[in-house]
Structure formats: C-alpha cells, structure tokens
C-alpha cells in the first residue's frame, strides 16, 4: 500500500486512461466513451493509487484483492488501466475488438489476465462480488472485494438481491462503488427511472455509504481505503460526469456509445493534456 499517493499524478493518469479509451473506441469504431470517461479516475485510484492489492505478475494469486468491473461495457477504460498496471503490454490495447483479440468488447476472464468476471449484461457483478466476499470469509482470508457498477445498472433487480445478502451476512470486506454519472443509454437516469435518493436506498439496505466527488483522486483513494464499517458492507457513491474531461462529450446522452473522429481525438488530447499514449504518466 502506498502511504501517500501523488494525487496530481493520479489525475494525469486518469486523463491518460481517458484518451487511451477514446483512441481504442475510435480504432474499433465501437465503444462506450461516456462511461469510460466517468469511470477513469475511479479506476486510476483503485489500480494506480495503491488501493488494490494485486500482482500483475501473478494475476491469479489467491490472496489478491478482487475488483469486479460490473459495468463491463466500459472496457476501454478498464483495459487501459489494466495495461497501465502491467497486466499486459500497452501495445495490446491496439487489438481492442479486433478479430480473435483478447480484448473483446466486454471483459473475458478466460482471455485476459486481471479480469475476474465476464460482465456485460449488467447486474451480474454484485452477486459475484458477494460470492467472492463470502469465499474470503469462509477461508478466513483477509483480501477485499471491490465492485464498480453503473448507476443505470442499478435498475437491475439482481443488484438488490445481492445487496440484501451482503447485509445479511455482514460482509464488511465488500466495497460497492457506484459510478453515479446520472445518465444511461437513452437519457438521464432520473428521466428514465427515478433512482434518487440513492444513498438512502443503500443505507436502507444496510450499507455504510460514503458519497464523494468521483473525479477527485484524493477523495476516491481515501474512500476506498476507509476502514471497513464493522459488520456492514460499504457503498461509495462517486458523483461523476459522463464524458468527463472532454468538452464535446461531457454530460451528453449520445456519448454513451459515441465514437470520436480523428479531429475529436486531437481536441480531446489537448483538453486532457495528454501528449503521448506510448507511456503512462509516472
């Protein structure tokens, strides 16, 4: 565990992830830019901010922390952070969605080191995370389980089934992170299905809730490293902006699966302050 991460560096790494994801989406002509961009700082904080106890040299090390990317459609950002953390070479990101590639549109744990669960349909990650947390408990092991969901994703009932189980079994080794960008595929979440008050819902389900600004690396790292609330799972609601960091995508519903043009990539690179994708800022 890094004792005091360089938060300014984490912010730059988050922006690297953003441009990496957009570039991958541009090359593949397919991807989920909005959600990639809202999740980038969350992912950077987890993997590069000293939160997740994982070993890229031993992706299946039994004592590793588990991170489950339940919002699996944001594979652009997820693959980028896995590569940045050293699970596979950066060069491989260029194969995103190419025929027979290890980098499928949604993550596959049998193809790619660092992936714990084959997510994509939404609502699958939290039950799996609960199972992982139960397993650690049964084995008397002290690794933690983190799962990142979208907010629209929480419309799937299976999430709440899992939340009830987490509460009933007092899974204090479980941290649910909600990427609360307030948008889903077609529209803003509150225009689709009213979900507020979201924090109150999680509290009612027995979770200790921490609500933070989801683009503030310090707030993110501190929330993830907060000591567990004894007997209660934790839910971190990260208030984010879908398409964050890029003016033409920020808070725009169409950018759920918008594909950037070459010109848009150049503009994004400028706005994000990223000059090269060949190296992760260190």
């Amino acid at each position, binding site marked *: 565990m890094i004792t005091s991460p360089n938060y300014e560096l984490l912010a730059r790494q988050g922006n690297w992830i953003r441009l990496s994801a957009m570039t991958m989406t541009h090359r593949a002509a397919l991807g989920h830019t909005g959600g990639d961009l809202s999740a980038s700082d969350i992912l950077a904080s987890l993997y590069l901010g000293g939160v997740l106890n994982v070993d890229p040299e031993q992706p299946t090390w039994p004592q590793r922390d588990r991170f489950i990317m339940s919002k699996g459609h944001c594979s652009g950002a997820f693959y980028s952070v896995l590569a940045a953390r050293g699970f596979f070479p950066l060069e491989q990101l260029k194969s995103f969605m190419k025929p027979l590639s290890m980098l499928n549109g949604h993550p596959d744990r049998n193809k790619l080191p660092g992936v714990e669960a084959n997510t994509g349909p939404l609502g*699958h990650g939290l*039950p*799996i995370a609960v*199972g992982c947390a*139960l397993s650690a408990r049964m084995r008397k092991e002290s690794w933690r389980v983190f799962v990142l969901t979208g907010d629209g994703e929480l419309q799937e009932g*299976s999430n709440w*089934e899992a939340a*009830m*189980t987490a509460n009933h079994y007092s899974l204090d080794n479980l941290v649910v992170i909600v990427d609360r960008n307030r948008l889903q595929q077609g529209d803003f979440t509150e225009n689709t299905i009213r979900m507020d008050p979201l924090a109150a819902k999680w509290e009612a389900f027995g979770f200790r809730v921490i609500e933070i600004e989801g683009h503030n690396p310090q707030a993110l790292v501190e929330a993830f490293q907060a000591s567990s609330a004894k007997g209660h799972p934790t839910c971190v609601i990260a208030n984010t902006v879908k398409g964050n960091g890029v003016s033409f995508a920020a808070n725009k519903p169409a950018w759920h699966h918008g594909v950037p043009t070459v010109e848009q990539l150049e503009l994004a690179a400028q706005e994000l302050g990223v000059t090269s994708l060949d190296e992760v800022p260190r």
Partner: protein
Amino acid sequence: MASENPNVCAVVNDSVSSTKLKNFQSKYPERFVNVGIAEQNMVGVGAGLANGGMLPYVCGASCFLTARAMEQVKVDLGYSKSNVKLCGMSSGMAYGELGPTHHSIEDIAWTRIIPNLAVVVPADSLETASAMRYSLLHVGPMFLRISRVPVRNVHADDYAFTLGKAPVLHPGNDVAILANGLMVERALDAAHDLAAQGIGARVLNMSSVKPMDEEAVLAAARETRRIVTVEEGLAAGGLGGAVAELLALQQPTPMRIMGVPGVFAPTGSAGFLLEHFGLTSANIQRTVLELIQQR
C-alpha cells in the same frame, strides 16, 4: 463430500428443506449460504465463491433455478467457465399438483445448449450419489437434474458414473430405447416385457446428456435401426432433440421421441401426469411395437 473437502460449500434459495440440506446446514454452517428467494443472485454468488477458491454446489428447485437464473447460468457459469455445480431438485413434474409453474420440463432443452455446461440426469439414487462424487472432480460448470419421484435402483452397487458414457443396461438388437432419469426404470420394464415377446430392446442410460456418448448412440442406431427416446420433459429440444440432431446428420434412423407434447401439464400428481402423457413402460412398449411395424 463436505467432510472430506473443506472447499465444498452450498448455496440455496430458501430451499433448505426441498434440497434436503438441513444436515449440511447444521454441520457446516460456515460453508452454507442462503440467499433467500433470489435465484439470479444465488447463481452469481456461486460464481463468486468459485472465484475465491471454494467448490460451490448451488441447489434449488430446478424450475426456478434454471428459468429465473438462466442468464447467470449462461454468462457467469457457461461463458465464464466457472467451477460451479448446479443441483436442480424436484425436476420434471415432481411437484405434480402444484402445477406447471413448479415443473421443469424445459430444463434439459435450455441447459444442454449452453456451451461449456455439462448436463447430467441421474436415473436412481445410486447414480445421483456417484454423479455427485464425479462432479467434485470435474472442473467446469455442471448441471445435475435431480428427481424426487422414487424409483428402484437400476444400477449395481459398484456402478460408477462417467461423464460422456451411456451404459447399456439391457442388451438387444431390434430397437434401442434411450432414456434418462425416471424413465430408465420404465424403459427397463418395457424391455423385459418386450423380451418375452421375442423383441430385443437395447436400453441405454443417457444420464450424460452433455457430453453425449455419440459412439454408443450411433452404434445403437447402426445395429438396431430403430431408436426410441423417452424423457420426463418436453419432447422438443431435450434428450430426444439431442439424439435426433446427431442421427439426422450422421446416421438417419427411424425415431420416436417420447416426452411431454408442447403443453403445460393439467392438474394432477406426478404419477398421474406421467401416465397422462404416456410416459409409462406400457406406452414405451406400444411405441416400440408401432415403430417396428412401421417397416
């Protein structure tokens, strides 16, 4: 198995009594998880337990387990190749009068087509025990369709289940009856009665629906030239469908597929419904004779 292997654990959906896991729960409470009435979560939890290094058995009434959680079975188990064993209890029409919502006549059809998912339908309690032990050593997802209607043991005490093998329980060269689960006992009764009429009915126990013993099925088709399949499930898409697919492509053979004909069951006990749908040894005999006379 739990006493021998500390990784064996169980997950249920409020189904402690229907899965007969009360003993497990009291002996190994720390390895027992009840998620309540929440099948999708139940299967996902199984996948997570396997990720963490445990050997989970996810158990519940087959009707709810396979239907409600089918996407989890497809993605969290099949696609993910998770080492989780599903036990679908009280399968087929075991719940009788409780009605079609509690029947699982489609579970074989649904599960056999999921890539990477093995599908086993034991014929008696000996085979169930043997298949369970086998499942512990099988790496990858497996669905065991367990019945509740009592049948006599049709296997010898030293029988050992093997995935992908269809043992011949009765020899014969005039027709082959391919059955699994409850129907094996009835197929054997039919075979004995047919023998008395000078008709040699070969009976194959198709407990391993997937992977299927294609060699044994093709040999039966080649050597007997008449195939009757019989299952406690829809005639469409299950065991009969699997056999028909193979034969149509590799060894076209006159067939009869006995099962529930594309309807939901009327009111009645399991025993009544099996009669109602003609899933009896008498009707198996009639079907064989009709097939033989067809030529």
